[in-house]
């Protein structure tokens, strides 16, 4: 259990600026996600926290003490890598025990702890299996066990689910959440999957091009994004200019540097005649909702309607009238 404080952290590789100076505060026991598209600097930030990379400027503080100059060996930080990074020449037991052996713990204590953690990740029966013989999901759990067993002060995940198939991803995601609750460890989780971040996190930092866009709870980021990037990345929101809002939707009061962010489920479709006319270019049935893509003023607008809604039914190619829920007043900055 520990807090993590980043002050004025930045990183440049040669000429390339990977991270602009940023501050970040992660609370004790928190599940904190770094979310952004690939190349946004989130993995670099994670490696700086772990000590595998040193920052070009700034300080890393764990539990208040400055660890910036400390090597990864001495930070007591657990990492779960994207490709698991298991030691291929060892068994499950040897992999998990490695960190404990480094600490020169007595053998009986090592055995007790390894078996305890393997029980928690449901791998007790595979204890002596060489890791190359495990499935992807099992390897993933060994990686988590290996990182957790040494009781690190913080736990770092670098896109741990991206090598798993969809069903396994959902299942493992729940496992990770459960384990994190049980152990109560401060966790920083890197991902490019906004669904994963929303489902797991207490708070999320959105990164783009090495700059923190916004930090907040999943709810805040989804319903109250500060800028266009967050709105479209988290909620796949449609962005309308001030002119379009005034002319077509009767929404006033946007300045030139502002956009209106409208979530797909907030767009109302009808066959009435109205000002805002568009043409359905695609329609996908996804069970609980029907997802329309509409050509509107050269913009591709996404609208999700509950599939139980019978009042509207449009086919691909047909004209449709768009309107907004009167309560939508979500103004965001133009990047």
């Amino acid at each position: 259990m520990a807090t993590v404080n980043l002050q004025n952290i930045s990183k440049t590789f040669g000429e390339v600026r990977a991270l602009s100076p940023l501050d970040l505060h992660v609370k004790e026991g928190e599940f904190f996600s770094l979310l952004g598209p690939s190349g946004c600097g989130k993995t670099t930030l994670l490696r700086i926290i772990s000590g595998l990379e040193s920052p070009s400027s700034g300080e890393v503080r764990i539990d208040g003490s400055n660890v910036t100059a400390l090597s990864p060996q001495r930070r007591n930080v657990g990492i779960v890598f994207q490709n698991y990074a298991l030691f291929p020449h060892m068994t499950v037991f040897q992999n998990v025990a490695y960190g404990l052996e480094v600490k020169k713990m007595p053998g009986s204590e090592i055995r007790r702890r390894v078996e305890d953690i393997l029980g928690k990740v449901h791998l007790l029966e595979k204890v002596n299996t060489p890791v190359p013989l495990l499935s992807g999901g099992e390897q993933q759990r060994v990686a988590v066990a290996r990182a957790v067993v040494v009781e690190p002060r913080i736990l770092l995940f670098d896109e741990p689910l991206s090598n798993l198939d969809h069903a396994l991803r959902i299942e493992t995601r729940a496992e990770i959440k459960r384990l994190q609750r049980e152990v109560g460890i401060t966790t920083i989780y890197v991902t490019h999957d906004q669904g994963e971040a929303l489902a797991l996190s207490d708070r999320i930092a959105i990164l783009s091009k090495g700059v923190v866009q916004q930090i907040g709870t999943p709810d805040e980021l989804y319903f109250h994004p500060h800028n266009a990037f967050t709105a479209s990345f988290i909620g796949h929101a449609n962005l309308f200019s001030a002119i379009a809002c005034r002319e077509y939707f009767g929404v006033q009061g946007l300045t030139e540097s502002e956009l209106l962010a409208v979530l797909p489920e907030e767009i109302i479709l009808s066959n009435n005649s109205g000002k805002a006319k568009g043409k359905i270019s695609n329609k996908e049935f996804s069970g609980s909702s029907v997802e329309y893509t509409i050509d509107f003023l050269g913009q591709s607008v996404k609208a999700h309607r509950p599939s139980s809604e019978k009042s509207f039914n449009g086919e691909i190619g047909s004209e449709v009238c768009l309107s907004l829920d009167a309560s939508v007043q979500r103004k965001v900055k133009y990047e």
Partner: protein
Amino acid sequence: MSSASRRITPISGMMLFAVVFYAAGYILFPMYALVKESLMGIGQLSFEPYRQFFRSSLLEASINSISISLLSVLGSAAVGTFFAYVFTFFEFPAKSFFSKLVLVPLALPPLVGVISFLFLVGESGMLSRVLALLSGASPSLFTVNGWTGIVVVHVYSFYVYFYLFVSSGLSQLDGNALDASASLGATRARTILKILLPMLTPSLVGASLITFMSSMASFSAPFLFGGATRYLTLEIYAAKLNGESSSAAALSILLLTISVCALFFLRWWQAHKQYLLSSKGTIRVSAVPHGKLTRILVIFSAFALVSLFALPIITIVAISFVKEGSWTYQIFPTSFTGKNYLHLFEEPRLLEPLLNSICMALVATAGVVCLGVTASYLINRKHFPGRRLLEVILSLPFGIPGTVIAVGLILGFNRPSLFSFDSILIGTFWIMPLAYAVRNLPLLYRSTTAGFEAISPSVYEAAETLGSSQVRTFRKVIVPLLLPSIVSGALLVFINSAGEFVSSILLYSYSTKPISVEILSQLRLFDLGVAAMYSTLLMLMVLAVAAFSNRYSRATIAT
């Protein structure tokens, strides 16, 4: 690919016959001749040739061969692994240039490498004399010969195996595993010892076995550098020259057994000990961080070593310009001339060995390409009984020392037989191209087979479902896809054949003297300039072929 297209047709049946005829006639039959000569050489069954193994001189040769080979493995491992480590984990100026320089010994025909060392640190070597002058000690302190000489030359010639194997092992290694170890609190030493080394074991074992086999088979180094050191390959050569065929045969079988055992162990190891976990992690230079002082020390010693390794080549090229008879007691040659090269065109006698070698290498390469591609096609794409056995037999010569192959061919073809079409091959033009072909076919077979394995079976299936006939599929789909592997294999075969020395020296006749044997003759006549000139030409040939091969493979990838 459908099972129908795997069946043997009349055409592929004829191809199969040719391959089996080759395997039986030119690989198995010479070995049979060896066994027969070793047991029946004196007209009746006798184990006398085997009993003499326990005579002190031969026992000494065996022990020397094995011990020197083990030392060569250790030395090559130290140097090659060091370079691989430095070039993977450190950044320094001119890195790509130096990384090419490290590969230089690959481009040296074995004989040329040995000769260059002779010029440098031999009895009157330049480097030895310079060092003696600088330190005031006697030059003999800095000359190497006997055991040390052989091991030094071996390390120089074979460290590249370790460099290549370990580099490729490191490049496939998951760098995150090293990071994981560090984050779990392990020190750098522990990470290297417990994680890095075990993960590299497959590469290290592979390189060790190949180095061991190459050292056991080594002939040029003990021949020119060994002084009075007894070596198995030399004993075979001496026995053959003395007309003791049956003891040459028995010794050949001893060496053959050791080498083939190593080969099979290598095969078994490669098949069973590869780690299945192939996560495509990339290694970062920062993966194993080093202190500044270590960095400077390590990079400096790498620079020094690499430069030292370039010295032999510079020496040979320089000596090729030395005027005949002008360099005797001086440390460095004093007068230089381009005459050695000009003579090449003025005196047909000098040009002849070069043309002989090129001609014989071309014949060997043509034969190897025809047979090797056919064999690879049959074994990879057809079903017939004994497929695996045929593959093993065809690859066998890879593990057989050149000396043994030559003795086998001599004993097999010094009288008419079915496989020599009822004539005597020894003393004719054909015996040397045959030896080159037998020695090098495994190379081409392997590169072509790698090409076959890279073609996904669905490619054949796609061609078949599009209505393409088998012949058409072969011509329009398989051959174009395989061409890069065939060409690179063929170039390698050509280079190896053109500079071949080990079996040539046993097989050549005066009318078909190859360049390598001519180098030796010139050396014996103390015509060092001409010997160096020939060596330089061989190196240029290798360079030209390597450059072409590089450009060619890049061009084919681009299309």
